[in-house]
């Protein structure tokens, strides 16, 4: 049989990681409040399900926006044949406006710089194809979105050079860390083409402060490398500080704009991942032109462009949506993190995103990757919660977990909290022992065939 390509046969798809075991556990045994109350609760999926009612309402009230209704079918033909990779002008205008509003009106976006991608997944890959050759590298601060390994590298051949951040300074990205990573890469003859950040951060749920953002712009400007800012969570900011986009920062500093590129999407801010709306917004004309041609490989369905053009140009709807989503995310975040605090679990202070970064370092049997994975397996298999272990985000410090909070209803969230509380209680009790108690637990554990981890660690 004719063999397949190297790309087809390597692990670049990223699916062999333990990260997906949690998903498999969920798929096999998904929680349902009445039909399967003992099933696995999905806390590993960063989806925004809190504002569908608003969107549904708009769609029902605006049938003309669908080209398939009696009210809208007269534009069906024109939309159905529209495959111009420039995209529908009204779509680009509406998205540019939405992006501006999502950034509090502090910056405006030019519709002519908007290029489509197959979701942010496609957009991130596209920008890599434009900026880097196979073998080139991008600096990526860790912890970072698990699928970057696939999106940035798989078919592009671009390497990821992680810049490790840790709790000592709340995971801030420092100039020193960047310089050090850059130097090391130079010494290893790795050609760094740019830096890619996610702001607000996945998995941390934090926004970059203005000074840090400025120092990043300064850094890339000095090194003459690109800066890609994935701002996919821009409108999920629910408490202060406000979101500062790189677009804002470059308005007030000297920098070569040809180096600045933003990635955006409606998958998180609007909760529409199925619609595959990815955006590449570059300040570099050559990249816009080339990216636009390349977008042929991942254009947004014209049917979807048309619907969203209508929806997002409805100022009243958008303004209300942005306020509501913020409110609802804030409430969720508060309820969940407060509930965890009550059982002694702390989280990194965050103000954005659809998740928070939970600190379970104190529950680790050993402060190692293995210890983290062991704890994670317990949480998935025994506590029946799919949370994402920090190692799947390349976090170098074991014991951190990303917990999503916007992809379920309030009751399910309460069930999850109850389970965590019970688990923490149980864990506290199992730690009290003397040696004698230890052997008793061992004996009874093996007797029951329990899968709970037991150890004789001294507290």
């Amino acid at each position, binding site marked *: 049989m*004719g063999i397949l390509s190297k790309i087809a046969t390597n692990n670049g798809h990223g699916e062999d990681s333990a990260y997906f075991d949690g998903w498999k556990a969920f798929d096999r045994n998904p929680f349902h409040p009445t039909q399967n109350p003992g099933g696995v609760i999905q806390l590993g999926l960063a989806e925004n399900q809190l504002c569908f009612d608003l969107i549904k309402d708009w*769609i029902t009230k605006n049938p003309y926006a669908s080209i398939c209704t009696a009210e809208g079918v007269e534009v069906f033909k024109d939309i*159905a044949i529209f495959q111009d990779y420039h995209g529908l002008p009204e779509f680009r205008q509406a998205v540019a406006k939405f992006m501006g509003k999502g950034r509090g009106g502090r910056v405006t976006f030019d519709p002519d710089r908007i290029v489509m991608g197959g*979701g942010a997944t496609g957009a991130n890959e596209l920008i890599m194809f434009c900026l*880097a050759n196979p073998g080139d590298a991008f600096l990526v601060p860790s912890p970072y979105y698990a699928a970057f390994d696939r999106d940035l590298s798989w078919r592009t051949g671009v390497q990821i050079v992680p810049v490790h951040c840790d709790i000592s300074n709340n995971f801030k990205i420092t100039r020193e860390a960047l310089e050090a990573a850059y130097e090391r890469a130079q010494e290893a003859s790795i050609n760094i083409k740019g830096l890619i950040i996610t702001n607000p951060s996945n998995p941390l749920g934090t926004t970059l402060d203005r000074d840090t953002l400025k120092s990043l712009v300064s850094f890339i400007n000095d090194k003459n490398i690109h800066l890609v800012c994935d701002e996919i969570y821009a409108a999920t900011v629910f408490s202060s500080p406000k979101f500062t986009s790189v677009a804002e920062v470059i308005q007030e500093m000297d920098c070569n704009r040809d180096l600045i590129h933003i990635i955006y999407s409606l998958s998180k801010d609007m909760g*529409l*991942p199925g619609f595959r709306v990815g955006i590449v917004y570059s300040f570099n004309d050559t*990249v816009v032109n080339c990216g636009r041609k390349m977008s042929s490989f991942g254009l947004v369905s014209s049917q979807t462009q048309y619907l969203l053009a209508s929806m997002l140009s409805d100022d009243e709807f958008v303004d209300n949506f942005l306020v509501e989503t913020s409110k609802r995310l804030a409430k969720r975040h508060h309820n969940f993190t407060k509930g965890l605090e009550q059982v002694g679990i702390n989280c990194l202070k965050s103000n954005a995103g659809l998740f928070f970064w939970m600190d379970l370092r104190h529950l680790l049997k050993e402060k190692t990757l293995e210890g983290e994975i062991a704890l994670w397996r317990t949480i998935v298999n025994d506590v029946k919660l799919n949370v994402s272990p920090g190692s799947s985000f390349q976090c170098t410090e074991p014991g951190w977990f990303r917990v999503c909070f916007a992809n379920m209803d309030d009751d399910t969230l309460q069930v999850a909290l109850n389970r965590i509380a019970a688990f923490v209680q149980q864990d506290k009790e199992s730690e009290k022992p003397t040696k004698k108690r230890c052997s008793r637990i061992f004996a009874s554990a093996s007797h029951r065939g329990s899968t709970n981890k037991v150890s004789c660690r001294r507290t």
Partner: protein
Amino acid sequence: MAIEIEQPSVSVGLSKVAVSETHGEDSPYFAGWKAYDENPYEESTNPSGVIQMGLAENQVSFDLLEEYLEQQPEASTWGKGAPGFRENALFQDYHGLKSFRQAMASFMEQIRGGRAKFDLNRIVVTAGATAANELLTFILADPGDALLVPTPYYPGFDRDLRWRTGIKIVPIHCDSSNNFQITPQALEAAYKEAESKDVRVRGVLITNPSNPLGATIQRSVLEELLDFATRKNIHLVSDEIYSGSAFSSSEFVSIAEILEARQYKDSERVHIVYSLSKDLGLPGFRVGTIYSYNDKVVTTARRMSSFTLISSQTQYLLASMLSNKKFTENYIKTNRERLQKRYQMIIEGLRSAGIECLKGNAGLFCWMNLSPLLEEQTREGELALWDSMLHEVKLNISPGSSCHCSEPGWFRVCFANMSEQTLEVALKRIHNFMQKRERRRN
């Protein structure tokens, strides 16, 4: 005397892919489009504008689609009150909506008159055939490898198969001596050419029915292609994007039928690309699929489709539309009839102007022979004629050289992307052009 030239400051490095011209937009194929964009024909407001005959779109059957939509409101806004909206908006599973894959499989079967079966679990969804062809190339070949492609071929292949993948296209030369059919000799010659350059051939990619020929590939040739691919242990990709545009169902033979007849022996090297852009006239919706008989290819393609999924909104609409057997049967039949009628109209119109075309039986275009009109039987001669057609006759047609045809003088002329009236205007212009030429000669 010294000439001072201002040097630009250090320019920011982009990738080789970004600065290459493999996107192909500098070819005459696209220059014609620009001329059209600058001066588009419009019956009442711009009757002397350029008529676009270089765009392979199917606009003859929209009324059937519109009628369906008017009668089936639940296919659109996720039902009354949009109960299905949430689930659909969240659906980003790269397996693709099951009901959509089911509907596509059954639609593909209907197009082939039930002569081939399609398993919905072998269908991978992609945003258009453009993405499907590129994706398959990433899976089947490494940078520097080659795919053999019969000429003339769709100009977009230069970009779709090569640009970001880094692979080469080695042409399988076909010519008018046998109606541009692919011969075993031509296959071997192409393979040897690649070998002589130390280039590894990973597969053959055919378009059936052919773009730009507007003709189906004969069963015997398909058998030869499969045998050739098996002998060389390479892949065979069959882009069947025009399968529903064959004027008669029985004249189109799919590679799927050949495989079934062979009980799927050697089928793991075969992959079919399909799309709704031509048969249903919905290029804006970005609906492409890969159908592979190779499990590993299906799994990998599915994972890779994450970069290019079909909007769930669109999958939902089409799942509904294409599972309505009454609608699809009527559509397929009516669409074929209308395309055939258009084809007859243009062929007769050209013939009465003294122009012959390759005998066609499918597609949205005909392959017109203007070689008798060339000043010189060269590419330059062809481009000079193309230029007059564009600027004097104001018709944008596609020169064979942009399709890598080795024989100068052939042109692809689209006929389904305009009204009958416009087609008549175009034919009249050609008539006048030919008459003027006759007079000049005499």
